[in-house]
């Protein structure tokens, strides 16, 4: 890996020039094709989708398949030598100092995301071929899904903040379309509106942050920003804290950080493949990605913001994770879980663990997409989202069951699956950077994660079936992507075992290190086994407790899907004294807490949002009804009313009788005569 390191340093010494020189060759020069193809698919599907066999699904899949070729080649090239390239073309130039460019950047970070988006995207698209079959507006589904993929790649490939904003709002738009995919029901439309508006509020931060930072350094380019930050440029330093906080606020919206997370659970109104790709694996990680792109700003100039960001991440990872305990809707369990995992990533990146956060982003994408697709397969089979309508599905749906278990274990962080390694690295980073309390919160979060995943698996796949009809395993077109995601969920973790360099390719940390300006972010040199053990114990305890409480009761063949179950079945309580105790602890602590948070979520945070909405609406009514129509317009109408009234009064003089007018003349003339005679 000597070559790659040299490259990074050359880039540092040569400044911007080294980026433009590029080392990507053909594949990097043509990487922009990935940003364009999905849009082509989008237009083609809109035009011809209805007439095709899969309603345009084949076009969407085809576009991503070609994309994946490019992404894979770039990924391999980057593994074996490092690829650093940037291609831009100018779309506008104002005067001499304000330049807008579009293009694509090829570096370790973006290659990782290219691969992730295209790989997970392709599998989800293939899955959707089966999932959406026979649904309404399948062509529109694939069109909007392709639009999303294109916008996401535009975001990922952005060489500057402007293109980032374009992709950012583009994915928001696609999200709005797909959350409200079943728009006949206005509830879904409202969920889409909520997502769009929550993100739009956060976008104010992104846009204002972009302006502050961009104007300070005279460019919106990420590489310029990195260099300016590395050099501690004075102009940038002056706005670093404000600009950093604003950008962070933008990231909070897209990445669903407390308290802007409220849109994500509602976003589950869309079809399940949408939730898998957008609201778990890719779109919601855009905020983390943004934070990683501007990382040098936080690393070098805006350290003061770290504390706040870490705290928000910690609240998100723990408090919102608890909500997954009380949800009955399996997609909401996963949604809250996603929010919680995003909290991990944000905490890590904010604390300075660039690699740790992004590695978790990488592994999480696989297993969370897997979990969502598994949930989708179940929903497809039982026609309900609620776990109370499920149960005992492991026999009917073996593939789904086993892949779901793999995903759950990976998410819970069980060695040696992917989630273990990434979560462990986050814990190590938090410990190293001195956020010990947050580290313990994160360990507690790992316990909660394991607990609710055990619950989800138990309620869905164990016990007896409580729904209607006879569920069957999903068709092969849906199970194949599950397997395709389960394999990386098991193995990708070993790509970044601290201290391990795989011969010829190095490790994830090095691949990610291919960038314009290397920064001294922390990544552990070896495994801290004691910390790993603590994390494992927390996860194992969560799994065990969850399993004991929610798994099938052999005597009655009934699942205990509620905390109240022991009260209804005293026999069981005596038989399993241990889960009684656990229930006492868990039920008395996490239950009420989770419920309380759920309550605050529904009535306080959502309530505030609704209140704000209502107040703004009322303000609108007031401004229009009272100020505009009465006051402002009233002035003008009043003026014309006065004129009109005066006219009405005066026109009574006009009787139409000529002799009266003549009398007027004569009277006037006489008055004049008198005046002249008497006075003059």
């Amino acid at each position, binding site marked *: 890996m000597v070559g790659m390191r040299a490259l990074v340093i050359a880039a540092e010494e040569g400044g911007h020039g080294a980026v433009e020189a590029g080392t990507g060759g053909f594949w990097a020069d043509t990487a922009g094709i990935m940003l364009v193809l999905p849009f082509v698919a989008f237009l083609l599907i809109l035009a011809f989708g209805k007439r095709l066999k899969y309603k345009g699904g084949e076009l969407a899949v085809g576009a991503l398949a070609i994309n994946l070729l490019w992404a894979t080649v770039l990924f391999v090239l980057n593994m074996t030598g490092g690829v650093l390239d940037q291609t831009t073309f*100018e*779309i*506008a*130039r*104002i*005067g*001499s100092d*304000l330049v*807008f460019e*579009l293009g694509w950047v090829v570096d370790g970070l973006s290659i990782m995301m290219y691969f992730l988006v295209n790989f997970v995207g392709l599998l989800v698209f293939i899955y959707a071929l089966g999932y959406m079959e026979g649904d309404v507006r399948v062509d529109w589904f694939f069109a909007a899904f392709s639009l999303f993929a294109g916008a996401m790649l535009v975001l990922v490939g952005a060489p500057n903040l*402007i293109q980032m*904003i*374009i992709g*950012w*709002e*583009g994915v928001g*738009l696609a999200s*709005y379309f797909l959350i*409200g995919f079943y*728009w*006949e*029901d*206005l509830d879904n*439309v*409202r969920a889409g*509106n909520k997502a*769009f*508006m929550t993100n*739009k*509020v956060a*976008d*104010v931060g992104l*846009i*204002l942050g972009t*302006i*502050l930072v*961009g*104007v300070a350094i005279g460019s919106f380019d990420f590489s310029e920003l990195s260099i300016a930050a590395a050099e501690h440029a004075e102009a940038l330093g002056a706005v670093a804290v404000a600009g950093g906080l604003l950008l962070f606020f933008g990231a909070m919206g897209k990445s669903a950080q407390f308290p802007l997370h409220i849109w994500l659970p509602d976003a589950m109104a869309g079809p399940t493949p949408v939730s898998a790709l957008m609201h778990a694996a890719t779109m919601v990680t855009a905020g983390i990605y943004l934070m990683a792109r501007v990382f040098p700003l936080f690393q070098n100039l805006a350290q003061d913001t770290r504390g706040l960001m870490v705290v928000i991440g910690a609240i998100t990872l723990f408090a919102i994770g608890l909500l997954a305990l009380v949800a009955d809707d399996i997609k909401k369990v996963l949604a809250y879980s996603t929010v919680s995992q995003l909290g991990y990533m944000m905490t890590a990146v904010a604390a300075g663990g660039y690699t740790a956060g992004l590695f978790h982003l990488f592994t999480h994408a696989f297993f969370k997409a897997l979990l969502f697709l598994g949930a989708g397969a179940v929903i497809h089979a039982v026609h309900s989202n609620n776990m109370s309508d499920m149960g005992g599905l492991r026999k009917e749906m073996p593939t789904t069951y086993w892949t779901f278990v793999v995903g759950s274990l990976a998410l819970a962080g069980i060695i040696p699956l992917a989630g273990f390694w990434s979560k462990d690295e986050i814990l190590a980073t938090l410990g190293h950077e001195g956020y010990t309390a947050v580290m313990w919160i994160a360990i507690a979060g790992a316990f909660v994660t394991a607990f609710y995943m055990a619950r989800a698996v138990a309620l869905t796949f164990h016990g007896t079936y409580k729904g209607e009809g006879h569920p069957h395993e999903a068709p092969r077109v849906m199970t194949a992507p599950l397997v395709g995601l389960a394999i990386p969920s098991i193995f990708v973790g070993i790509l970044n075992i601290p201290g391990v360099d795989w011969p010829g390719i190095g490790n994830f940390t090095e691949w990610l290190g291919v960038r314009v300006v290397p920064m001294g972010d922390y990544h552990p040199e070896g495994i801290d086994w004691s910390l790993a053990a603590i994390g494992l114990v927390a996860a194992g305890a969560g799994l065990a407790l969850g399993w004991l409480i929610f798994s099938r009761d052999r005597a009655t063949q009934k699942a205990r899907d509620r905390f109240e179950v022991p009260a209804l079945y005293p026999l069981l309580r005596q038989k399993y004294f241990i889960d009684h105790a656990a229930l006492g602890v868990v039920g008395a602590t996490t239950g009420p807490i989770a419920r309380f948070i759920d309550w605050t979520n529904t009535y306080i945070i959502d309530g505030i949002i609704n209140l704000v909405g209502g107040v*703004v*609406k009322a*303000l*609108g*009514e007031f*401004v*229009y*009804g009272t*100020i*505009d*129509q*009465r006051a*402002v*317009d*009233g002035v*003008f*109408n*009043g003026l*014309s*009313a006065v004129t*009109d009234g005066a006219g009405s009064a005066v026109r009574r003089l006009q009787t139409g009788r000529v002799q009266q007018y003549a009398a007027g003349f004569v009277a006037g003339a006489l008055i004049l005569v008198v005046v002249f005679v008497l006075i003059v």
Partner: protein
Amino acid sequence: MEWFETWGLTIIVFLPLVGALILGVIPKDNEDALKTTGLVATLLAFLASLVLIAQFDYSGGVYNTYQFEVEESWIGAINANYHVGVDGISLPLLVLSTFVVVLAVIYSWNHWDEPKNPKAFLILMLILATGMNGTFVALDLVLFFIFFEVVLLPMYFMIGIWGDKSPRKVPGFSKLFETRLYAAIKFFLFTLFGSAFMLLGFLALYFESGNFGERTFDIVELTRLGSGGAFTGTFAFLVFGAMFLGFAVKVPMWPFHTWLPDAHTAAPTVGSVLLAAILLKLGSYGFIRISLPILPQEAVNWAPAIAILAVIGIIYGSLACLAQTDMKRLIAFSSVGHMGFVMLGIATMTDVGINAAIIGMVAHGLITGLLFFLAGSMSHRYHTREMSRLGGNIKLMPVMGGILAFTAMASLGLPGLAGFWGEFMALVSAYNPLEGLSLGVFRTSMVLGAVGTVLTAGYMLWMLQRVNLGEPPNEWEGHTFHDVDRYEAAAWVPLIVLIVAIGFFPKVIFTSTTDTVTSLVDMAFDPEVTAALGSLMKGG
């Protein structure tokens, strides 16, 4: 094409008028001949403007130099000349004007509002086109004023004759008014009120310019004098104020906006489109072409006030939108907000801000024009504009619903579509206004403007929810609706293409504007340049 150099602009301006004269002699019942004539006249003007684009020299435009310039003596007694020309600033607007008029004619092909009468309507439209094109090329204040006013009459008649006949209550009056009459008169009086002051301002400039040589109405000459610091003090303050009134009413800026929702709501579809797409731009164009270069020092003094009014307009317009029940009225109020961004850009007195204003004007013309087309076509079909009676439009008319969704997204400033650049760059410019302007005022404006974008998204999504989505109300059960027909498609597709093209490649506008605007800002606000010009003026 040598002759085009001298005749090009005259052709673009007066071809529609010639078309109107020809229409005058075509019998009323020969509808095809009438429509063809109207289309040919506007299309030729548009093609001529395309030739203009092709022949225009984009390199290094220096402000106050014009291309395709013509100057002929016209009213010798007051030294008013027929002086026309284009530069990088007026070119995009001129092309927008010729372009939208063509689309309006195409759309009219089978959309006639009661009481039909295509002949009269087309004649009015063509006169309107002459007025609009003329305003964008006039380089003489008298000529500018005449074109500016020519626009009024056709629009007055369009609203007053083809407008909405339903009665409405007006606060302060006990009797009911016909919506169209109230709106037409309000529109006319408001604008006339403003332009009366504007004319006063022009006359004052004319007489004052006598102190520096021959009295003149010539914009080029006055700009030369003004940027050298000729007009200052109370005189300049009053003149700027008078012209401000004229332009602000037209833009419209808060609090002179109240004619706009009424006029738009009452106007026939094509009238609304032309009103939104082009007429509003005459005001903001006037600021850039006349107020700023001729009275630069005074413009700086007025800038904070303009910025504050602009931001009030942004927030206020958006809030008012949230209270609307009438779709057309909602779109009309959204114009108040969008033009607020344009004026905020101008108020910053920077090259970024003025460029933002120009692209904002073009984008608003395309987007809001399309929105009014859509609102018109929908009320043609549903016979109502009340959003509470609409719903599920995308189910009843998928293509129209889709276009409406697209346009609403463009209107809320989605990045990647035309509307984004104007808003974003206006905010950028407000962060760093011209040196010497109050940072507090402008940065507060920036934040409030950004909040305004959120409100904009709010009402646009809300409109989509009420009009486009959900199940159609029972009222429309069993009705079949004709989706977008080919004339509508022919009028709308070019707009959609342009909205996307400008969104992804704003250079198409900036290529023309950026050098000219930079030069304008240097000339007007750079102290060194001003001093140099001032000494030159005294020497001459």
